[in-house]
């Protein structure tokens, strides 16, 4: 009965949304949610239904021409897929989950998105408002559970609130330093009808200042430090990508002539082969950037947050350098590393201002030092990793061969562990938004669902997931999502028959006491086959290239399992508690 009514009002609704000066129509809360999505340009939703979110799923039935819904196999898969979508597309990822266990299954993804600044809007169903706090069936205090892992959250108990709250949610998720937002909607608010006046996007909230006002005096101070520097060094992070400032960044680097190194989330903001791109920072980063961090005279951090995996021991980190820190989030400045000059603002705005004031320069000798270190690293380590002639296959050569075949155009989604570090170190990226990985949280199980989402977010780009034999088993159920949605992702399992990264630590720091890192695997090719995904398993070097080519050429998803050296380690490595200049090559 009510459904018919909804359909009847739909033509009016369309105009309503278009003009926003609508005549009043009667609308259910559920439809208001979906209208908000349409108005915000959402095209894909990842989700899993249940009792408390059923009214929204019911309304979704009528929106199949406007909103694509991907049924995942677990809510964690749903939120990681939305993260992958957001990261590959630069748009807001959207997730639906039901109350109670549906909502709690989102927590890992929320924590992951929070620390990696990924814009998400999650909608969770909640029990009827009159049942709140009564331990009703599938009632969980979602708001309080998610508070520490959301940029903002809100519980809607009245349908009338929905348009304004959703507008706020999108605004908060995608502006400033982006992040996940969760809206918990009680069942009555989904069902109730209210007088709908159209949807107005939100672009201002009194208490929310997404972008600090750029203070020119700090730009000037920064420029002066840069112009006086003899050995300046740039560290760039995901802030460049989130600010869509890749072009501005490149212009800055090229005019200033400063060598630049990246955090794993910053990878791809500057093409890998750019002559001033000197490599990866951090625990498993490149030799030169780590050592020379402690030799530069001015360190310019752009859109990165000095994570401990990047800095190593803080009291021995870049003590000799004057530090310039550009970040949109004022709370990041001076948080871990004290800045000589803090430049608060969106780097899309601050970088051009800075570029204008810096003198065009080149630092041939200084840049050469990075290349000298690279040579050392190549000879002692990279060459053996990428082009081994004997022994078992290495993770590095898989990535290396993949680069050759995809020519740096693929989106690489990596899981967590040794293979992640290898993928980040060796994958080549020609363009931004190509390296999707769980950086701050290090969430195993991320890659398979994130790759699915990444493909929906960038349908014209090849997506390759690189996953360990441990991580794949954490969200392997998402094979089902691939099967049902027909999405085209390539899955490479790098199987070392161990929880490799933990084993490496046990070997190096726990006297080789391999405690519960020996993990058995199913026959992945067969499992994939069960889900209608073709696959292949490679153990020999001379089969690798062809197998990769077959995988890439296949029209649709494909799984390739590669057996790699059981006890291979990832180097270089800055051991825990050491300074970046104590980086070990073996």
């Amino acid at each position: 009965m009510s459904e018919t009514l909804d359909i009847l009002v739909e033509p009016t609704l369309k105009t309503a949304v278009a003009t926003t000066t609508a005549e009043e129509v009667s609308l259910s809360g559920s439809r208001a949610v979906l209208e908000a999505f349409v108005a915000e340009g959402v095209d894909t939703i990842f989700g899993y239904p249940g009792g408390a979110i059923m009214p929204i799923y019911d309304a979704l039935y009528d929106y199949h021409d406007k909103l694509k819904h991907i049924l995942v196999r677990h809510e964690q898969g749903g939120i990681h897929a939305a993260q992958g979508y957001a990261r590959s597309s630069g748009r807001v990822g959207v997730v639906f989950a039901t109350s109670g266990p549906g909502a709690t299954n989102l927590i890992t993804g929320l924590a992951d998105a929070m620390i990696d600044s990924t814009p998400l809007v999650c909608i969770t169903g909640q029990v009827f408002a009159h049942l709140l706090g009564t331990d009703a069936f599938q009632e969980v205090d979602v708001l309080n559970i998610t508070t520490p892992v959301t940029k903002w959250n809100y519980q809607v108990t009245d349908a009338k609130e929905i348009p304004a709250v959703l507008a706020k949610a999108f605004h908060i998720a995608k502006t400033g330093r982006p992040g996940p937002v969760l809206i918990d909607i009680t069942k009555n608010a989904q069902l109730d009808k209210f007088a709908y006046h159209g949807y107005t996007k939100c672009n201002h909230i009194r208490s929310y200042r997404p972008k600090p006002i750029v203070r020119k005096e700090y730009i000037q101070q920064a420029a002066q430090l840069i112009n006086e520097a003899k050995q300046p060094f740039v560290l760039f992070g995901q802030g460049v990508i989130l600010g869509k400032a890749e072009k501005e960044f490149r212009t800055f680097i090229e005019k200033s002539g400063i060598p630049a190194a990246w955090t794993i989330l910053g990878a791809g903001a500057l093409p890998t082969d750019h002559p001033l791109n000197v490599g990866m920072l951090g625990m498993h980063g490149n030799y030169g950037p780590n050592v020379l961090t402690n030799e530069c005279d001015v360190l310019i951090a752009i859109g990165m947050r000095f994570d401990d995996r990047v800095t190593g021991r803080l009291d021995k980190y870049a003590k000799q350098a004057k530090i310039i820190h550009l970040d949109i989030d004022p709370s990041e400045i001076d948080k871990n590393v004290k800045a000589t000059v803090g430049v608060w603002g969106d780097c899309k705005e601050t970088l051009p201002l800075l570029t204008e004031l810096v003198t065009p320069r080149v630092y041939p000798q200084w840049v050469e030092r990075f290349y000298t270190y690279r040579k050392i690293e190549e000879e002692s380590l990279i060459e053996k990793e990428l082009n081994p002639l004997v022994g078992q296959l290495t993770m590095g050569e898989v990535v290396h061969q993949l680069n050759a075949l995809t020519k740096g155009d693929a989106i690489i989604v990596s899981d967590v562990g040794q293979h992640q570090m290898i993928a980040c170190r060796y994958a080549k990226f020609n363009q931004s938004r190509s390296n999707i990985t769980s950086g701050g949280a290090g969430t195993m199980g991320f890659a398979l669902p994130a790759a699915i989402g990444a493909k929906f977010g960038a349908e014209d780009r090849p997506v390759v997931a690189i996953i360990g034999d441990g991580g794949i088993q954490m969200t392997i159920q998402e094979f089902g999502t691939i099967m049902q949605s027909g999405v085209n992702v390539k899955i490479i399992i790098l199987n070392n028959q161990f929880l490799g990264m933990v084993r490496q630590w046990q070997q190096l720091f726990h006297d080789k006491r391999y405690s519960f890192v020996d993990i058995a695997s199913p026959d992945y090719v067969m499992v994939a086959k069960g889900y209608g995904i073709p696959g292949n398993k490679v153990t020999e070097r001379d089969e690798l290239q062809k197998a990769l080519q077959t995988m890439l050429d296949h029209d649709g998803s494909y799984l390739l399992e590669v057996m790699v050296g059981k006890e291979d380690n990832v180097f270089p490595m800055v051991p825990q508690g050491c300074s970046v200049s104590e980086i070990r090559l073996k």
Partner: protein
Amino acid sequence: MSTLIHKADQIVAAPTKQEFTITVYAENQIGLLVRIAIIFSRRKINIESINSSPCEIESISRFTLVIHETEEVVRKVCRQIEKQVEVLKVYYNTNDEIIWQELALYKVSTNEIAEKVKVERLLREYGARAVVIRKDYTVFEASGHREETDKLVDVLSEVGLIEFVRSARVAIIKASAGFHEKLREFEAEQPSEEVVENEYLNRNEEVFTM
């Protein structure tokens, strides 16, 4: 000196811990208290006292928190608080930068009080007053700094203090030009329709003359 945390040219961090009063102006919204509280609990910082009340601007709450920490930690925590969507502004101050009070209530047996005249004089000395007088007990109220209200506890304990309770600190920043001005500044940059102006504060010269 009032320490606007927006300023980059900060006073150098003192390594020693001391008492800081944090003042938070925020939208009055359910759940915000938890958001603020977990910023402290996550860092294992104990909140000595916390008070939340409406402020002079409609729909805006003012939180007053007291913590014992180093200035560096306080500054970082304040930036995290200010980052919360609903929070408009955060200030932190040392004790010499604020005027503060705590309210205390003392329940004592009326008989004992009546018998001991000395007590009444003491009350006057401590600026306390009776809020309720019943046959069985009397409730006194006093406000002041911790040491002051504590002293009265000591004294009243001797005459059979039945119950004692003290409120969180409330504080006014001495040097602050007023948060309201700051809000107007914000709004001038990015105006919103929601801003509620307080007509009295706009004419503060006329209204608040002492």
